[in-house]
């Protein structure tokens, strides 16, 4: 399995932000995207995960292969940690949540309502959801926000386990992830150039 992105142009609010992106991630490999704020990393990840339409270019894998984690974790405060995870496990048809609980050391918290968790604990729960999906491609946007050093290590371990199992991961961050072996790519050079002014066509620019 290999994730190939060719000549991808992504848009935000109808305006191209990154263009001509080519990248390839093969099984067992992790790629970290870097770049300054607002360059379009989130837009790129959402487009690759199939949540947004690409303006041009192709993504080789179907969205059915991918699990996406964004800035919001999709946690329901009134439900317990275990109920939150069980829900996603049954939506993705994978069943067991024990492995995910163990990976992020959520076992002791399993019966607590998710609303009572700290920010870091919520983030761990959000990341545990990725394990539960059973999808081979992890597309993650700023996964380690609000995690402490121990939790970052847990996350790195989870990603390594995922890669060892033949999965692949595409991450965007500007914080250290504790994944020294991961390839790093700067998206800065792909910043889209403004289109010509006089191109008064159907797309208005």
């Amino acid at each position, binding site marked *: 399995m290999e994730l190939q992105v060719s000549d991808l142009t992504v848009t935000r609010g109808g305006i191209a932000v990154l263009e001509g992106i080519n990248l390839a991630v093969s099984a067992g490999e992790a790629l970290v995207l870097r770049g300054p704020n607002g360059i379009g990393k989130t837009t790129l990840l959402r487009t690759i*995960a199939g949540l947004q339409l690409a303006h041009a270019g192709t993504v080789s894998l179907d969205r059915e292969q991918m*699990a*996406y984690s964004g800035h919001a974790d999709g946690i*329901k405060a009134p*439900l317990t940690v275990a109920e939150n995870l069980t*829900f996603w496990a049954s939506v*993705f048809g994978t069943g067991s949540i024990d492995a995910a609980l163990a990976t992020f050391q959520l076992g002791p918290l399993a019966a607590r309502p998710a609303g009572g968790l700290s920010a870091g604990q919520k983030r761990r729960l959000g990341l545990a959801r990725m394990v539960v999906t059973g999808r081979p491609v992890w597309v993650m946007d700023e996964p380690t926000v609000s995690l402490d050093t121990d939790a970052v290590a847990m996350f790195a371990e989870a990603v390594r386990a995922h890669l060892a199992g033949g999965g692949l991961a595409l991450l965007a961050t500007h914080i250290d992830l504790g994944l020294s072996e991961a390839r790093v790519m700067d998206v800065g050079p792909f910043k889209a150039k403004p289109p010509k002014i006089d191109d008064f066509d159907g797309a208005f620019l």
Partner: protein
Amino acid sequence: MIALLLRDLRLAIRAGGGFGLGLAFFLIVVVLVPFGVGPNSSLLSKIAPGILWLGALLACLLSLDRIFALDWEDGSLDLLATAPLPLEAIVSVKALAHWLTTGLPLVIAAPVFGVLLNLPAAGYGPLVLSLLIGTPALSVIGTFGAALTVGLKRGGLLLSLLVLPLYVPTLIFGAEMARRSIEGLSAQTSLLMLAGITSAVIALLPFASAAVLRVNLR
């Protein structure tokens, strides 16, 4: 799909707001109407089916913006969109959950509230039947409206403006069915039209709602 339904029901029960709020609102409407039109019991019994239908409709409207807004805010909707469920199914399940938490309690409570409005004895059966057939349409149409306004701040008012005109046929045939039965006229046409609207809406509108949601998630 069942997991999604169970989750939505569980959320509605735990977070409150679901069952309780709609019913309380329905009760308040029913209690306020006599203050507005006067304590004339024959007048009240004449307008009872209309008031009960309108109360149910407004109570239903009240909870519509919660169908997608919460899932949108916390990112669940994005995650659901990448899940191996077609969006049409998600939309239908959401509508079903809304009906179970809002519509069904209203149907069950309607006869009790009918007593407050002197609803004639002949009206109870047809009223409950018309609500039972009609309220699913309210939930499905409402889900369409909620999908249209999901990404908007202050979408609540716009949602009402968009959904209320779409409720007109259901309201007309629903209230008409109860009214005709009370007056001893044949309610068959209304019943058939109401059932027709509900089944057509359930069969077709989820496609429009899913299309709209797809646009909004983009």
